[in-house]
C-alpha cells in the first residue's frame, strides 16, 4: 500500500546528507531506510568509545571511510582521571581491520594507542589517508615510523598534544622517497630532533603540502629552509626561535615568511623573542588564525603584531596580553570569532598580570563576530558578564575560568549568579558553557531554565546543595555532557533525574557528595547506563552512605566494559533486585 522509494533513489538522496545527526534520524524512519542509510554512511563518529562495541559499529557501517572516536572523559586533561583508566584503541582497530578494510581516516581523541595499533593500521587499510591523534598516549615514534613507511597514500599525519615515547627522530626518514601525497604533517609534540635534510626532501617532494607543524627541535635555519621549499603552506607551526638574533638570520627569516603568500594560520612560536616578531609582519594581514599561547612575549610587542592582523578570526594568547592588548585586539581584529586567553603562571601566587574582566569586555564590545571564548582570569564581576551577554548574544561557547575558587564579584562581593544568568538568558545559541567563581544554587536555576541549547556544561566549586543538580538535570534540554567537580550536591537530585542521564552522553562527578549506595541504586534502575566508580579501594569496604571520590556515568548499549583497571568499579545491574523498593521523593 505505502509508496516505497527504490533503494537506489534513496541512496541518491542520502548522498546529499552529510550530517550524522540527520542520518541518525533517517535511520529511524523504517527498516529499509535504516538499511540504506547504514550501507551508505561514510563518516562515523562515536563520542564515547564505550557506548557501543566496535564489532557492532563495524557491522552496521561496512562502507565506513572515516572513523572518529573519543575515549577518556574530558577532565582527564586536568589529571582527574588516573592513568590506566582505559580508552584503548586496539579493539576498534582490530574490529575495523577485519570488517572495514576500506577505512581511510582515523581520528582519535584521548585514547590509548599503542605501537601495535599503529602497525595494525598500517598493515590493514590499503588506502589509508588520514591519521589524527589528539591528546593520545601509549605509542612511540616506532609506531609513527610504521605509518610513514607503509601508508603509500598518506595525506594527513597529525599528532596533537600527544604523549609519545620519543625514541629519536628516525621516524621521519621512513617516509619512502616515492611518497608525494602529504598534505598535512604535525609533529609538534615530539621532542627529538629529526634530520633536517630528510624533512627538506619530504617537503620538496610534497607539492600538496598545506599544513606543517614542526617541533621545538627544528631550528630557525631549518625553518627558513623549509619555508623556502614550501611557500604554498597555509598553516605553519614554527620550530624554535631560541637562536641568537643575527641580522642576516633575521632578514633571511623575514624573506622566507614574505614568500609565503598563502599563510593563514600560525602557531608554535614557543620561545620567540620579541626581536623576531617583525619577521612575521608580512604574513599578518593574511592570517586568520594565530596561536601565541606558548609565546612569552609581552606588551607592547604583542600589539605591534596584532594590530596588523585585520583578518584574524582565531586568537589564542596568554594573559600577558593584558587588558591593554585586548583593547587593541578589539579595535584591530574586527573579524575575530574565537578568543582564548590562557594563564601564564597558573600555579603561582603572583596575580600581578594586569588582565582583568575588562579585557574580555573590550573584545566583546569591539568584535561583533565573537562567538567562542575561553578566558582565564583571577576575578570577575557580574557587571562584566552582563555587558558581555548584552553585547554578544551570538556567543556559542563561553568558558570562563575564574582562577580563585569561590571568588565572588570582587566589586560587590556577591555571587556571580546574576552574571551567568545574563549569559544563559542572553546567548540563546550557547552550546558550551563553563562556569566558575562563587555561584549559588540560583545560578543553576537560571542556567537550567534558559540554556536550552547547551550541550556541554562544566562546573567546579559551585552551588550549595542538591538543588543545583536538580535544576540542571530538570532543565537544560539539550544537555549531553555534564562534568562537575567539588560541588556539594548528593544523591537526591541524581536519583530523581536518572532518566535524564540516558539522554546524555556522559556525566562526570568528582569530589561531590554522591554516595556509593546511590550509585548502586542508579545502576540498578537504569540498565543502559554504566555507572563506574573510580576509587582505589573496593567501594564495599566503606559504608554505603560514604561519598564516592569519582564517578563516571555514561549511556551504553555495550554493557559494562571488560577492560576496567583495578581502581574502576563498574556497578552491575543485579537482576534479582527489582526497583520496587525504591522510595524516591
Amino acid at each position, binding site marked *: 500500500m505505502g509508496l516505497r522509494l527504490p533503494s537506489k533513489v534513496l541512496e541518491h538522496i542520502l548522498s546529499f546528507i552529510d550530517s550524522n545527526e540527520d542520518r541518525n534520524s533517517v535511520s529511524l524512519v523504517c527498516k529499509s531506510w535504516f538499511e540504506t542509510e547504514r550501507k551508505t554512511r561514510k563518516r562515523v563518529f562515536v563520542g564515547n568509545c564505550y557506548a557501543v562495541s566496535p564489532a557492532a559499529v563495524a557491522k552496521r557501517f561496512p562502507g565506513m571511510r572515516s572513523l572518529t572516536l573519543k575515549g577518556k572523559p574530558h577532565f582527564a*586533561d*586536568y*589529571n582527574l582521571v*588516573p592513568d*590506566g583508566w582505559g580508552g584503548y584503541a586496539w579493539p576498534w582497530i582490530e574490529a575495523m581491520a577485519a570488517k572495514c578494510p576500506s577505512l581511510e581516516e582515523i581520528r582519535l581523541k584521548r585514547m590509548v594507542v*599503542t605501537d601495535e595499533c599503529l602497525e595494525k593500521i598500517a598493515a590493514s587499510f590499503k588506502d589509508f589517508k588520514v591519521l589524527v591523534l589528539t591528546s593520545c598516549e*601509549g*605509542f612511540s615514534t616506532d609506531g609513527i615510523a610504521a605509518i610513514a613507511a607503509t601508508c603509500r597514500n598518506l595525506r594527513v599525519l597529525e599528532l596533537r598534544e600527544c*604523549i*609519545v*615515547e*620519543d625514541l629519536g627522530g628516525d621516524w621521519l626518514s621512513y617516509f619512502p622517497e616515492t611518497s608525494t601525497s602529504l598534505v598535512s604533517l604535525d609533529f609538534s609534540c615530539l621532542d627529538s630532533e629529526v634530520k633536517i635534510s630528510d624533512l627538506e626532501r619530504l617537503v620538496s617532494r610534497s607539492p600538496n603540502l598545506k599544513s606543517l607543524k614542526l617541533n621545538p627541535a627544528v631550528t630557525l635555519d631549518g625553518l627558513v629552509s623549509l619555508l623556502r621549499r614550501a611557500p604554498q603552506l597555509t598553516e605553519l607551526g614554527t620550530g624554535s626561535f*631560541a637562536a641568537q638574533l643575527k641580522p642576516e638570520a633575521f632578514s633571511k627569516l623575514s624573506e622566507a615568511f614574505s614568500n609565503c603568500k598563502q599563510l593563514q594560520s600560525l602557531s608554535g612560536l*614557543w*620561545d620567540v*623573542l620579541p626581536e623576531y616578531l617583525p619577521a612575521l609582519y608580512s604574513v599578518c594581514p593574511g592570517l586568520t588564525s594565530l596561536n601565541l*599561547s*606558548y609565546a612569552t612575549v*609581552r606588551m607592547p610587542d604583542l600589539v605591534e603584531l596584532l594590530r596588523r592582523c585585520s583578518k584574524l578570526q582565531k586568537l589564542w594568547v596568554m594573559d600577558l596580553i593584558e587588558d591593554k592588548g585586548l583593547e587593541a585586539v578589539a579595535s584591530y581584529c574586527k573579524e575575530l570569532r574565537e578568543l582564548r586567553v*590562557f*594563564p601564564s603562571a597558573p*600555579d603561582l*601566587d*603572583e*596575580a600581578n598580570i594586569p588582565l582583568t574582566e575588562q579585557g574580555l569586555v573590550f573584545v566583546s564590545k569591539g568584535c561583533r563576530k565573537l562567538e567562542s571564548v575561553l578566558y*582565564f582570569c583571577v576575578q570577575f564581576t557580574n557587571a562584566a558578564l552582563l555587558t558581555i551577554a548584552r553585547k554578544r548574544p551570538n556567543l556559542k561557547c563561553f568558558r570562563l575560568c575564574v582562577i580563585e*575558587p569561590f*571568588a*565572588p564579584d*570582587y566589586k560587590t*562581593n*556577591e555571587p556571580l*549568579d546574576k552574571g551567568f544568568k545574563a549569559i544563559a538568558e542572553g546567548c540563546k545559541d550557547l552550546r558550551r558553557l563553563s562556569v566558575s567563581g562563587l555561584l549559588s544554587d540560583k545560578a543553576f536555576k537560571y542556567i537550567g531554565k534558559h540554556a536550552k541549547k547547551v550541550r556541554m556544561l562544566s562546573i567546579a566549586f559551585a552551588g*550549595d*546543595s542538591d538543588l543545583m543538580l536538580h535544576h540542571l538535570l530538570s532543565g537544560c534540554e539539550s544537555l549531553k555532557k555534564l562534568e562537575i567537580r567539588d560541588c*556539594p550536591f*548528593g544523591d537526591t537530585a541524581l*536519583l530523581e533525574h536518572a532518566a535524564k542521564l540516558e539522554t546524555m552522553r556522559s556525566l562526570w562527578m568528582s569530589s561531590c*557528595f554522591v*554516595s556509593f*549506595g*546511590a550509585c*548502586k541504586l542508579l*545502576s540498578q534502575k537504569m540498565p543502559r547506563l554504566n555507572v563506574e566508580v573510580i576509587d582505589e579501594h*573496593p567501594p*564495599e*569496604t*566503606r*559504608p554505603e*552512605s*560514604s*561519598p564516592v*571520590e569519582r564517578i563516571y556515568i555514561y549511556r551504553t548499549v555495550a554493557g559494562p566494559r571488560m577492560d*576496567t*583497571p583495578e*581502581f574502576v*568499579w563498574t*556497578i552491575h545491574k*543485579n537482576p534479582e533486585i527489582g526497583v520496587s523498593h525504591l*522510595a524516591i521523593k
Partner: protein
Amino acid sequence: MSPEEELQSNVSVASSSPTSNCISRNTLGGLKEHNYLGLSDCSSVGSSTLSPLAEDDKATISLKATELTLGLPGSQSPARDTELNLLSPVKLDEKPFFPLLPSKDEICSSSQKNNASGNKRGFSDTMDQFAEAKSSVYTEKNWMFPEAAATQSVTKKDVPQNIPKGQSSTTNNSSSPPAPKAQIVGWPPVRSYRKNTLATTCKNSDEVDGRPGFGALFVKVSMDGAPYLRKVDLRSYTNYGELSSALEKMFTTFTLGQCGSNGAAGKDMLSETKLKDLLNGKDYVLTYEDKDGDWMLVGDVPWEMFIDVCKKLKIMKGCDAIGLAAAPRAMEKSKMRA
C-alpha cells in the same frame, strides 16, 4: 592481622566466587545478607571494621528533609561528615579518603556571618580549609589517590595569609616571595601538556623579565618495558624518598606485583628503605641522565644537586645498570643521608 587486612584478604578470596553482589569485582562474602540498599547496617563487615571513619562521617545537609534515606525505616540515616578534620585525627593506618571540600556546615555558617546579600563566604575561611587539606595531599602527579596523605604530615599547616581575599587587591607581603598557593589537583583547568611545555620553554630560554621559571621542573621518566613515558616535576618533591614513592606508584602497573601494590594497608608505609630495596636491590634501579649526558644511579648526590643536574630519569632493570655505580656504594651514600 589487623581488621583491615583481614578485610582485604576476605575481599581477595571472595573475588573468584560468583556471588550475587552488585559489584563487578572483589565481592565481600560477608555482606550477603544485607538488604539491597545495604546502608546503615552496622552489622556489615565493612562498617564495623572501619567504624571510626563511619562515625566521623557526619554532616548536615540543608535538604535533609527531602534527602533520600537509604536504609530500613527506623534506622538512622548516617549523615556524612566531610570536615577536614578527617585528616588530622586520622591514625596513620587508616586512610582518609575524602579530604575534599570544606564541609557544608562551615560554608553555611560563614555565610551567615556575612550579611544577607547572596552567599558571601568568608573567602579566606574556605581557602584556609582548602589549603590545609590540599597542600598536604595534592601535588601535580598523575596518581592522586589520597594514600599519600597517610604518609605525609597530617598536622594542620600554617596557611600563608597572603591569599587574596575576595575584595581586596592582591597585596602580598612583598619582601619574601609568597609561598606557593595550595595546589588543587587539576585546577585551574590547564592541560598538563600546556603546563609541561611552558615549563620546558622557560627552562630552555632565559628568564623572562627576570621572573624565575614557573616553579616546575619536569623531567621525563621512562621504564624498561613500559609502553609509555611519564613526566614528573622534580620540584614537587623534597627528597629521594618522595620521588621514589611517586615513581613507584606511577609505574606500579608495570612492575610485577611488588609489595602487594595498592592493596597494601596504610600502615605499610612506603618507607625509604623499603623502596630502596625495591628499586635498588632486586628488580629495578632508578637512574638519571645528567647534564653531561652520563647515566648515573639516582641517590649518589645530595638532592638539591640532583634536581639541578638531572635531565631524564629511567627505571632500568637491575642487571642492566651494573656498570653505573656499585650498588653497595650508592646504598651506603643514601644511608648516610637518610
